[in-house]
């Protein structure tokens, strides 16, 4: 069983989609590299840290992207972002059934600052354009760099998110918060606190992700197949009714948990038994306990 967390983007793709089915667009051989990194004497990558292409998943044609966390933390620069936007627009043009995004990213690539920020905004719009065209967009989050910054927002614009317990999904990284607001605000070296706050179990209990799986590529593959099937049975595009439901859930979350200081208090308030022991629960037992107690999702 290969660990999703420890695999590279290409190893994940290799095992996640049907064997031999990945057809990459603008792959490393095309050598489309960042036009901005050179002036900072930073290394470039021939794929700019993301592989995008067509593939099959359980026999069905899909489009898929995988971010490589080992190159600049998977951060989004001009080319990287354009590859994601191009993939999502191709999915619309080809009337694809689904796009799968294997996200591992710190968000905007600061080395490309302004260009990176606009690129993330374009990805966000492209995800919502795809949904409006009836293309299901599903995000997988389980890499060691987590999914942060603007891409943490993009993930929550998708139809569904699948996470591992080890996966992390948030906005500002703990180091950024500690630097800006002090160690007493968020101690980034307190690994347990970081995982309680950003990890898959907390996100599942809050309704921010729709599935938590064990840290194997095979588990992510099955969860991706299931998530796409589930999303395609429902309403793929945004609707006023769905956003009003989401609004009510987010307001309820703020009302019930806004005065709490630690995720463990939230888990207790949700009715989870022995909340302090939740970080130690293995995925299956956690899900059976959490399934009926988690906040409703979008």
């Amino acid at each position, binding site marked *: 069983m290969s660990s999703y967390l420890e695999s590279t983007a290409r190893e994940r793709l290799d095992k996640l989609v049907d064997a031999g089915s990945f057809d990459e*667009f*603008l792959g490393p051989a*095309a050598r489309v590299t960042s*036009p*901005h990194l050179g*002036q*900072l004497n*930073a290394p470039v990558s021939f794929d700019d840290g993301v592989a995008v292409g067509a593939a099959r998943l359980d026999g069905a044609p899909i489009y898929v992207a995988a971010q490589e966390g080992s190159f600049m933390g998977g951060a989004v620069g*001009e*080319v990287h972002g*354009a*590859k994601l*936007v*191009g*993939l999502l*627009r*191709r999915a619309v043009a080809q009337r694809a059934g689904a796009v799968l995004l294997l996200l591992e990213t710190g968000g*905007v690539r*600061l080395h*490309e*600052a*302004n*260009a*990176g*920020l*606009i*690129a*993330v*905004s*374009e990805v*966000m*719009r492209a995800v*919502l354009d795809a949904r409006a065209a009836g293309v299901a967009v599903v995000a997988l989050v389980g890499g060691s760099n987590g999914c942060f*910054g*603007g891409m943490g*927002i993009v*993930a*929550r*614009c998708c139809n569904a998110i699948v996470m591992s317990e080890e996966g992390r999904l*948030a*906005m*500002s990284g703990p180091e*950024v*918060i500690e630097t800006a607001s002090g160690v007493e*605000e968020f101690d980034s070296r307190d690994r347990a606190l970081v995982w309680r*706050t950003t990890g898959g179990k907390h996100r599942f209990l809050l309704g921010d992700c729709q599935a938590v799986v064990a840290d194997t590529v095979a588990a992510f593959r099955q969860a991706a197949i299931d998530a796409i099937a589930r999303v395609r049975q429902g309403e793929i595009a*945004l*609707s*006023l009714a769905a*956003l009003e439901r*989401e*609004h009510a859930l*987010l*307001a309820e979350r*703020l009302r019930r*948990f*806004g005065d709490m*200081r*630690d*995720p463990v208090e939230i888990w207790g308030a949700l009715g989870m038994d022995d909340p302090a022991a939740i970080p130690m629960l293995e995925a299956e037992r956690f899900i059976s306990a959490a399934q009926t107690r988690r906040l409703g999702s979008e």
Partner: protein
Amino acid sequence: MEWKTVAASMFPLGFDIAERDDFLCGSAQLAGGPIAVVGTCGHAPIGVEIALAQAGFVLDGIRQHPGRPILILVDTQGQRLRHRDEMLGINSYMAHLGKCVDLARRHGHRTVALVYDQALSGGFITSGLMADACYALPDATIRVMGLPAMARITKVPEERLVALAATNPVFAPGPENYLRMGGIEAIWQGDLAAALEQALGQAHGDDTRSALGLARGGRKLAQPVIEAIVAGKHALAS
């Protein structure tokens, strides 16, 4: 610049905009009818409450005033940097705001944004950058992160970034750089009322920013990469 100064100049027919804890909402009169106004002031840090408040105003507008155009007034120092916001899932609140603006557009509300003071990062991509088109005043600053923080994270010396920010559009915080890269449609000078009317007249739902960035020379690779992938190609056309 103060939002009231901007509003007074932009809405000579009058406006009724409330300010509460850096959150702005209300409406104003244009020759063709009312426009909804939503946004922030005071370089607001965008936390879960103010993201939700803006989203709620946009949703109510879709329900109660179908088709009414929306102006988003942007002044933010970016997302609030607190453990509590992360614990509550601030990315979900910000995504919700972005989705509400997106839905408004798809329901026929023309949406225009104006950076009248400062725009940063996450507070910007879920508000101003979600509009049909985003504009800026000449003195506005737009950036991803302050240079000291950027230096810490990128490990590029701050002096090097300061030098780059003076000459390089990717690092410099001025609106003209965002204009060149296609992130800003135009910089408003002079008659703000006329500029708003013109922006509403031109508003459309397509994201053309990468094409603008190419045409204006500020982002030369994004559009060719997008086009190659939409065509399913394995190499860039040379």
